[in-house]
């Protein structure tokens, strides 16, 4: 069991308030991703849950039990750090066994559990190596192994993939998702990469300046962003915003259209512009268009589109795919 509840959790470092007050419910078995730009307080929030920092005010409950003032070791949580934080002087086997040793498990039991974890993570051939002799992906697996042997109430991941190269990152993303399906344990995952958030999460928590901007499933956030920040943060490439007359016509301060929701035409449409750069990827074509008013727009068209630098084109938003925002940035 591993439900986590935050009630009015606040955190200040001296006079600086990093988290002005967060309420959040994470149910047992859920995969929750905290996402936001760097400095938004997502890592701090994770560390508060871990107990590595203490809260300035508010309550943290795990399975209904108040752990606000409990030491990290008493919270039944396991954490995977950005740098993996492996113990360099211990072999992989000892690294993975360390939490079990601290828990005072008998050696035979430790061995059995380490063997099992190593099996799941394909680490069996490396058990007697030291972290320094492993590749980045292998270290990552050891860190995960060290987390799973304890059978914790929940896993905490702090940007675990940011030190891996692009290809490996995609693999590990899938592996972590599969692990979650297999273990069905609560996972709280921090990242600044919205693609990771979209692909892995059951529930995404978007944070900015220590505040929760929106909580919801990936498609909720994609289809119904609560405000301009979430709309701009979720989805890749980012949503295009157009202000001024075009927006006023729809009764909004600004309108947002995702790159994949434009219709292209060389003859007629709602807005006209000039193609700056055309990126032909084969599967998609990305057009960087400067509207006649000066607003830059990114368009994603499926397949191969015969448009090139300097071409004049017309753009029309697809029906029902226009997001409207008021002057405060809230969705209308």
């Amino acid at each position: 069991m591993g439900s986590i509840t935050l009630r009015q959790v606040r955190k200040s470092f001296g006079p600086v308030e990093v988290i002005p007050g967060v309420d959040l419910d994470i149910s047992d078995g859920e995969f929750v991703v905290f996402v936001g730009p760097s400095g938004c307080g997502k890592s701090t929030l994770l560390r508060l849950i871990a107990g590595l920092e203490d809260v300035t005010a508010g309550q943290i409950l795990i399975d209904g039990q108040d752990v606000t003032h409990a030491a990290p070791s008493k919270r039944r949580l396991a954490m995977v750090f950005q740098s993996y934080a492996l113990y360099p002087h211990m072999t992989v086997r000892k690294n993975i066994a360390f939490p079990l040793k601290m828990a005072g498990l008998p050696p035979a039991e430790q061995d059995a559990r380490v063997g099992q974890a190593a099996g799941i993570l394909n680490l069996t051939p490396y058990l007697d190596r030291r972290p320094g002799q492993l590749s980045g992906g292998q270290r990552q697996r050891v860190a995960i192994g060290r987390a799973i042997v304890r059978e914790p109430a929940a896993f905490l991941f702090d940007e675990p993939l940011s030190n891996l190269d692009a290809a490996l990152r995609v693999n590990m993303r899938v592996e972590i998702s599969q692990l979650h399906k297999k273990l069905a344990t609560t996972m709280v995952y921090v990242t600044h990469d919205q693609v990771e958030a979209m692909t892995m999460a059951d529930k995404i928590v978007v944070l900015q300046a220590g505040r929760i901007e929106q909580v919801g499933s990936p498609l909720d956030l994609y289809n119904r962003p609560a405000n301009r920040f979430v709309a701009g943060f979720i989805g890749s490439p980012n949503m295009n915003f157009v202000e001024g007359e075009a927006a006023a016509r729809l009764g909004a301060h600004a309108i947002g259209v995702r790159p994949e929701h434009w219709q292209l035409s060389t003859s007629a449409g709602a807005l006209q512009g000039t193609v700056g750069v055309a990126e032909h990827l084969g599967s998609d074509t990305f057009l960087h268009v400067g509207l006649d008013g000066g607003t830059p727009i990114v368009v994603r068209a499926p397949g191969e589109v015969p448009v090139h630098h300097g071409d004049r084109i017309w753009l029309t938003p697809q029906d029902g795919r226009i997001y409207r925002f008021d002057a405060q940035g809230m969705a209308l």
Partner: protein
Amino acid sequence: MARTVTPARKLTFTLLAWGVGLLIFFPILWTVLTSFKTEGDAVASPPRFLFFDWTLENYAAVQERSPYVRHFLNSIAIALGSTLLGLAVAVPAAWSMAFQPAKRTRDVLIWMLSTKMMPAVGVLIPIYLLFRDLGLLDTRSGVIVVLMLMNLPIIVWMLYTYFREIPAEILEAARMDGAGLWHEIRHVLLPMALPGIASTMLLNIILAWNEAFWTLNLTTSKAAPLTAFIASYSSPEGLFYAKLSAASTMAIAPIVIMGWFSQKQLVRGLTFGAVK
């Protein structure tokens, strides 16, 4: 640099550097050679460099003058004792300053270093009188405590610079893995910092072994380490060069050898991490 070096150039520098190196090392070499001469050969003119009657009699004679073994043991006790005591006090302090720095940590570190600046003579008299009244004059424990206090700032500083290289995330990982403070220090911090702790020990043993203000002023015979024992040769009695050399060789050999092995760490330790 990858550029090729002409053999002539290399040879020139080799000869020059070896020449200068041998010149600087010569007094030590000469001392060691003299320790194997008879007293007559030691003062012979012209000096005899290698062709003399090699003898070990001086090493035996040194023990007769004053129990050399006792002074040697005193040196070991004082150097090791003050270093271990210092480590015991400094490890927790350095841990806390490296991983839980407060606003004042930097000031505390600088202040600690500044205590090294206080000239020993400024406190010689009270320490001497206190020691006299407490019966600590000429005792090992007295000297150990004073040298520990002398070197404590250096020990704290060195450990601090080594500890700071350990990523805080690893200690946090230990905490998440269920380790309490003791296990965190015992299983993670100390093993990871072991090379640093070893070089800290080494440097402090060297400093304590060679310390020659407090050891000369606070000991007379019973607790006198080798520094004080050697000083007793400053009032010569007859022919004594060979014996002085033998005593000197024995006094410096262990520490010179230790020093050679710890050159690299020495730089770092003596510059408080400013030069690595």
